[in-house]
């Protein structure tokens, strides 16, 4: 398996140390993450599970640089992001993270091609010409099986196709980390399987994937499953071989 080959070079992508996140709601303090520590290496496929209120969304937001920890540190691909300002966080998101959301989060009035090109619009370094971008976006769309759909708008596509468009968008900037938040949550089981298949093959080609899910079957595709409870890691299980996707 190629995944094994990649994990042979164990560069750390995510390093979370004693991280705490406290929300203030009026006078009440809600502790969403309570001194959590995580290490995820390049090429790993990690699933994060846990009941609602366990802190997995908060963890996802911080790992995705959408939010900052209250205490503790978070290093993404060697960069400490816990003290960064909003602009710096935005740069990191654009450059290093590809998001896959449960509700796709595509721009409804933009075509598939425009949606996939979106992260390129905000890219600061390594900008390439409009023509090169389009070529890259087309090949990325083709890679997720959306050849000939580049002019279609999200409304004109099925849920599975929309999620594949979102995956293409997540891949376009060649991010260090792919964050998937319940990627099959809005899909029927057949489309869900297709999406998991794509994630699986991305993992095989060496991508680092962190996926939040409450679906045990989906979690089965991951090498490692982290169970959260009350803002802490409750249980961690390593699956030596991920279950191959059926079909």
């Amino acid at each position, binding site marked *: 398996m190629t995944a094994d080959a990649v994990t042979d070079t164990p560069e750390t992508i995510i390093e979370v140390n004693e991280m705490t996140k406290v929300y203030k709601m009026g006078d009440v303090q809600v502790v969403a993450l309570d001194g959590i520590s995580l290490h995820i290496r390049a090429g790993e496929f990690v699933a994060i599970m846990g009941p609602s209120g366990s802190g997995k969304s908060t963890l996802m937001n911080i790992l995705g640089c959408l939010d900052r920890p209250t205490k503790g540190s978070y290093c993404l691909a060697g960069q400490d992001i816990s003290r960064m300002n909003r602009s710096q966080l*935005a740069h990191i998101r654009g450059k290093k993270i590809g998001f896959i959301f449960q509700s796709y989060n595509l721009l409804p009035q933009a075509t598939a091609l425009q949606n996939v090109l*979106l992260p390129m619009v*905000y890219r600061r370094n390594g900008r390439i010409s409009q023509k090169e971008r389009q070529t890259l976006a087309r090949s990325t769309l083709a890679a997720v099986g959306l050849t000939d759909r580049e002019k279609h708008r999200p409304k004109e596509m099925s849920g599975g196709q929309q999620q594949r468009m979102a995956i293409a968008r997540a891949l376009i900037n060649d991010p260090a980390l792919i964050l998937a938040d319940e990627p099959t949550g809005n899909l029927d089981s057949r489309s869900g399987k297709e999406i998991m298949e794509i994630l699986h093959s991305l993992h095989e080609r060496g991508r680092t994937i962190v996926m939040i899910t409450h679906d045990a079957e989906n979690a089965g595709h991951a090498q490692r499953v982290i169970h959260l409870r009350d803002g802490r890691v409750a249980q961690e299980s390593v699956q030596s071989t991920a279950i191959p996707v059926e079909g």
Partner: protein
Amino acid sequence: MIGEVLQIAWEGVSRNKLRSLLTMLGVIIGVAAVIIMVAVSAGTEATIADRIETLGTNLLFVSQAFSAAGPGARQPGGSSNDLTYDDALAIRSSVKNITGVLVERNSTLAVKAGNVSSDGVTVVGTTIDYPEIRGLTVAQGRFLTQKDLDNTAKVAVLGYSLAQDLFGEENPVGQKITVGTVKLYVMGVMEEKGVVANTDYDARMYVPISLMFEKFTPAMFARFAGNMVNTITVQVENQEVMDGVITQIEILLAKRHDATMEDLPFTVRTQQEIIDTQAATTESFRSLLAWVAAVSLVVGGIGIMNIMLVSVTERTREIGIRQATGATPGDIRWQFLTEALMLSLTGGLLGVVGGVGGSWLFNQLGSMRTVLVPNSILLAFGSAAAVGIFFGFYPANKAAQLDPIEALRHE
């Protein structure tokens, strides 16, 4: 990057075409109003300046002063504050260094020659210095003489086109015409002059002012007005003697009307003073109009801010998606500011087109003379841009400050 920002902003504006147009309408109207109003007042100013300049050169104007008692108020002792033809005659005979004195009173009457008639002809009752002061020359026959005035002679001098209308190829001199109910002899025809400052000099005719007082003033009006005139125009030899002539006229009038120099019921002003007064009046009128128009620009700006705030709320999810894919607060701010600017500048541009077109149309319709003032176009367009930045900043900032997590969750 700039191309992309413009493209995104354009998509935002064009998504709701009707709404964007209605939003721009405030700015369009504001900008067009500034340009048209300034053009109209500049046109009025130019017309007044033309009119005063074509009156002749080195002129003084004697007219009734506005007083608390009002013009025509009778003073104790029976002397009058009215300016009369007799005052003009007195000035002509006793003031030195002057080359002519002119009074006129106009009436509009029907004129008939044989079986040709013309309605609504301007009949000008005037004095012998009229052609000299107004720069007109006689083509055929002669102009009015002092004898005509003294004798209230039933004579007339025709303007060029009026003569043609009444007599065609025939020589009008010596012919009889009927003005109102009075028969007059044509003594001369004026040289062609054309239309100057809205006055068609060729379509009028001239009669002795004494005849005007006697025959062409309605009886009931004559009782009050007598031989009263509004303005006595005095032509002076040159600029150097202007002040001396003013003093002479003031002393003469004070004596004739039993008034002191301090509360003389008349004013003697030079052409330049009148131009300056008019300019000052139109200037303040123009700035008042500009302010009114500026207010509508501000209202337009508030419209832009309003719609941008709605747009930010509607597109919260989109903002969240853009933030997740790497847009910084600065990027978001620029996007919405560009959109607001696009609305205001497009509105401004349409307003300039509307304003220039409107001014042209007013001119073409002939109802109002307009003169485009380039500065007003720059000012209006610049204000539109400033309004866009000013009223776009708050919504743009609001969009930039959105929390990406909240924005992504927004329905």
